[in-house]
């Protein structure tokens, strides 16, 4: 029993003692100074790259004149990513519960879906949905069902959203499955013993706990998706990459436009990381209070 005191980290500092307080303050100052140094290095790197660009006749004036069209594209990128991550989350929820269910049909369909999507490139999936599906639609129309055939002919934006949702839904199915499985079996048993139905156990006990574990991963997936959404530019969706490409070709300003595009993605992902950190902090508080 007494050995328990030695299992954790040794209590080096008692923060209530003045000496401890001094130590904490010192640590805080050290961390602050370290932060300033790192920021300086970043600033130096950015200055270096900028200097190099200027020497190599990259035109900052052109970049400044065109950042606003990229900003419009960023709106589309964000919109496509937000809608896709939301539907991917729904798919993943459905997929993970199916994979864990005892129903062989649900299990089979979910397993097939995950395997198929994870085993093929996203770009091929985009082509299949945007260029392949209309072919099927035409066949069905010719068979005399134009109403059904029309469903298969998607505009670029819905096609992009569908492709991203399906793709991320599959990867996130595995993340959700791990999250659901991480909730101890005792939780399920306690709920069953209270008389809960499987649906109630999932909704009231397992999901609320699993979501706290899953949220950081969904954030990571959202950040990755913002970058992967560049692939939907192949369908002519007016998002960041497509717009950058278009202007770059027209004016032969490749470096300029793609640098602005890169900056736009970078800023988007940094903002998303902040949002994610803030969300996680709030979630963590709920367990304590």
């Amino acid at each position, binding site marked *: *029993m007494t050995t328990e005191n030695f299992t954790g980290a040794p209590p080096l500092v008692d923060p209530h003692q003045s000496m401890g307080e001094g130590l904490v303050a010192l640590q805080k100052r050290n961390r602050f100074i370290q932060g300033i140094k790192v920021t300086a290095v970043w600033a130096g790197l950015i200055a270096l790259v900028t200097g190099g660009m200027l020497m190599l006749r990259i035109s900052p004036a052109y970049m400044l004149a065109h950042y606003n069209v990229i900003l419009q594209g960023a709106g589309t990128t964000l919109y496509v990513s937000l809608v896709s991550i939301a539907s991917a989350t729904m798919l993943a929820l459905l997929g993970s519960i199916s994979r864990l269910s005892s129903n062989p049909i649900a299990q089979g369909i979910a397993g097939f879906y995950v395997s198929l999507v994870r085993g093929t490139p996203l770009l091929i999936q985009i082509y299949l949905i945007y260029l392949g599906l209309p072919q099927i639609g035409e066949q069905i129309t010719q068979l005399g069902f134009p109403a059904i055939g029309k469903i298969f002919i998607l505009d670029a934006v819905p096609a992009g959203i569908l492709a991203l949702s399906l793709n991320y839904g599959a990867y996130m199915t595995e993340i959700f499955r791990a999250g659901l499985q991480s909730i*101890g079996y*005792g*939780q399920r*048993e*306690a*709920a*069953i*013993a*209270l*008389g*809960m*139905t499987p649906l*109630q156990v999932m909704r*009231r*006990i397992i999901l*609320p*706990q699993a979501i*706290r574990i899953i949220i950081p991963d969904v954030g990571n997936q959202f950040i990755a998706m913002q970058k992967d959404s560049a692939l939907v530019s192949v369908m002519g969706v007016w998002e960041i990459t497509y717009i950058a490409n278009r202007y770059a070709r027209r004016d032969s300003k490749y470096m300029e436009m793609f640098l602005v595009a890169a900056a736009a993605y970078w800023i988007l992902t940094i903002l998303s990381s902040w949002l994610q950190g803030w969300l996680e902090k709030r979630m963590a508080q*709920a*367990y*304590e*209070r």
Partner: protein
Amino acid sequence: MNAEPIIQVSGLHKWFGMLHVLSDITIEVQPREVVCIIGRSGSGKSTLLRCINFLEEPSAGKIMVDKLVVEAGKKGRANRKLIHEIRLKTGMVFQEFNLFPHMSVLDNVIEGPVTVKRMERAKAVEIGMMNLDRVGLLVKKDEFPNRLSGGQKQRVAIARALAMEPKVMLFDEPTSALDPELIGEVLNVMKKLAQEGTTMLVVTHEMGFAREVADRVVVMAEGEVIEQAEPASVFNSPRDPRTQALIERYRSGGAK
């Protein structure tokens, strides 16, 4: 004593694959009776308890709880409904507490009434507070489980089970996961419940509790009930040599 039993287990068998864990178990619990099950680790005590509320599926035999009878091997909607109703009539307390960490203490206690019984929240809160008071933890109602000691967690778990107003309480080694200094507070709560007339079936290694509180002690070994009688007789003049050995081990201070 010979009123209608509240629990009647007859001819119960349980196999885990090839492992014959319970062999022809027949026991009864009368209303307001406190029955303690003792036995060595692995003798099948938990499995027996878990068969009564169908956390484990019995392989053969019959389970009766408050006039509801379920026969092993039956499937179908009607059977599932019976099992559901039996679960409503039994409250279960686990060795590992299994409180819901994402809910406050009070929310843990009212979760059953609100979600399962569809009780109005205000009414459930009233019942929840009353039962938290019974286990002496009303002051902790807004706390989250991770802020409680092990003993307090287990008392909340008892309140959570009581809030469903079950006909019988099942305890599976409720103090085995506790530090020695926290065991007393949980046993005291259980003793109080027993005095209030709660029907209890308790798997335990706490021989002092069994001797003092139980009306009857059931001794299990290798998946069978080898002896059952009132505590004085089991502890003072055990008949089966395996019971003697078990009690001897506790006398000499060894747990399990």
